[in-house]
């Protein structure tokens, strides 16, 4: 059944790509300046956070700019894909009510839109890597795997949220608040070591924490990711995808009537 579904999705690959791309263009209003702003946004955020945390809070971390920027880009991807993904069903009543194709196409394409936006942002990061002359080591091999797992994890969460959002329209407010809190609960601005000892274990339950830590280690610090982290990330990504798929498929039959 799942295999059939994947086959069906493959048949719709053009549509998925087309929807992702048009959403992407729409976000930037199809203008050059729009793309420029999308680069500026993480840079401005980086500047503010850098000034605050390295000067006022005196965070002592090697390559703190890169440390921050990578964390922000990865976190932005997660928050954006769930944010856009959440509205991928409720935001398109015209399509849902008038035409059929597998509804998860909307969620998948909104996650791809978020991915495109994040890839765009990471251009800034690559430039910074060159400026700071960070050596690229073989540990970079881990990166594609980490990114794929991050995508799967985000997709799973997005599917759950998009389906629930059809039935509970205040999900978005709950999720916004949750994400605000999670931003500070995830080692984005600081290292895990700055967490109190007893809170570290709890912080590590969060898959995003391990994803960001592993990405930093492999990209910036030439340190291989720990097996424990990779397994934890892999298992949780698949767990959330299965959960998302199950919730989505359970609620999907009612979408056209509920919207």
């Amino acid at each position: 059944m799942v295999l059939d579904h994947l086959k069906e999705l493959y048949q719709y690959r053009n549509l998925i790509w087309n929807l992702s791309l048009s959403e992407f263009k729409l976000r930037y209003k199809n203008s050059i300046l729009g793309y420029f702003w999308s680069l500026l946004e993480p840079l401005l955020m980086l500047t503010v956070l850098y000034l605050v945390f390295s000067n006022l809070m005196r965070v002592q971390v090697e390559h703190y700019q890169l440390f921050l920027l990578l964390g922000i880009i990865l976190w932005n991807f997660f928050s954006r894909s769930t944010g856009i993904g959440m509205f991928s069903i409720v935001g398109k009543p015209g399509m849902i009510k008038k035409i059929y194709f597998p509804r998860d196409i909307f969620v998948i394409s909104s996650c791809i839109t978020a991915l495109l936006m994040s890839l765009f942002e990471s251009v800034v990061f690559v430039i910074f890597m060159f400026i700071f002359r960070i050596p690229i080591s073989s540990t970079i091999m881990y990166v594609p795997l980490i990114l794929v797992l991050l995508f799967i994890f985000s997709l799973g969460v997005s599917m759950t949220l998009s389906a629930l959002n059809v039935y509970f329209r205040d999900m978005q407010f709950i999720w916004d608040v949750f994400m605000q809190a999670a931003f500070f609960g995830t080692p984005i601005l600081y290292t895990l070591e700055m967490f109190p000892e007893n809170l570290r274990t709890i912080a590590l339950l969060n898959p995003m924490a391990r994803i960001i830590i592993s990405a930093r280690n492999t990209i910036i610090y030439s340190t291989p990711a720990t097996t424990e982290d990779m397994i934890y990330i892999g298992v949780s990504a698949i767990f959330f995808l299965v959960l998302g798929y199950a919730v989505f498929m359970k609620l999907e039959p009612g979408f056209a009537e509920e919207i």
Partner: protein
Amino acid sequence: MSIIEVSDLHKVFRIPHEKRNTVFETLTGLFRSSGYETFHALRDINFTVEEGEALGVIGENGSGKSTLLKTIARIIRPTDGYVRVNGKITPFLELGVGFQQDFTAAENVRTYATIMGIQKREIQAKLDNILNFADLEKFRDTKLKNFSSGMQVRLAFATAIQTNPEILLMDEVLAVGDMEFQQKCIDVLNQYRNEGVTIVFVSHDLGSVRRFCDRTLLLHKGEQVVLGDTQHVIDSYVYGRNEGEDTGQGNGGSGSLQEGNTNRWGNRKIEITGVEMYDKFGNKSVRFNSFDSMDIRISYKAHEKVLDPVFGIQLYSEKGEQLFGTNTEIKGVIIDHVEGEGHIDLKIERIPMLTGRFLLTVAVHTRDNRIYDWHDKLYRFDVYPTCRDSGLFHIPCTWGF
């Protein structure tokens, strides 16, 4: 193998008395029970559609036509039973699904074509064709928000017909657009039919159903009334609804008319006791297809022997304009005398009216217009169109070129 198979299909909509669609409402409402209404939109529908066949679906508003089409298109799920489709569906349910106002015509064509399932290579090749057909080449790079609604529909339609459908679902598409656009739709539909595309066509326009569909399914309040040959079903639809529902007598009155009715006068030496209309099958009806035959039977009761009476009718439009009047004297029919009960029939071979509601006056009087009984506009009937000519009535004509 049937290309579409619908079996024991039921669809029930649950309409809650109090809509809860937030977490907050769900939590606070957890301990208060809230009832809901159920609405049986479709009840026990069974049919199959063979490859290359055109099936029409007709019925009044709320009879479940669109629900049925949406179920076949997989947009909504059946509550019970199943729909099996062995082929690729191209839904024409609505034109221009997914149009983005902020994108140009060309960009929108690409997206819409992808939605309609056209391959990427083909789209590029067909883009000029599409814009040409829609008469919009000049506006290729104009944003859609600057288009008129007519231009948008043309663009959508031009794109949609580029598909090579196996199964086409159409829901009242012909209802939008002007005559020219409708003609284009019909041409395309005809072309698809000739290519052997399976079509499921939902419409109120009995004329186009008659022309396109081999078989027709009639729904009434979610139930399948009849499925069969289009001509037969339409006749039963238009003619068959009146049993016990409506006698055609004005003001919802029953067979006997009340005394003191302001629409009735005369000395009642001869009393008109009833007026009935019969369709071409000889069934009593108040609904007729244009161009069909119609018989009007006037029953009377003469309380004494009356010599040389004249029976007449007058036909009015719904607005009360007189359209036609005739009587037995004008037609040279001499009734020597009447006595007791009896009836007289007026045969109309061909109803020339195209569509609308019509009022009928029936009277009996003496040759010098002293009235025995006059029923002024007390009867009514409806005429349904069977062709696409417009207006009140049909003028026989041909074009020379």
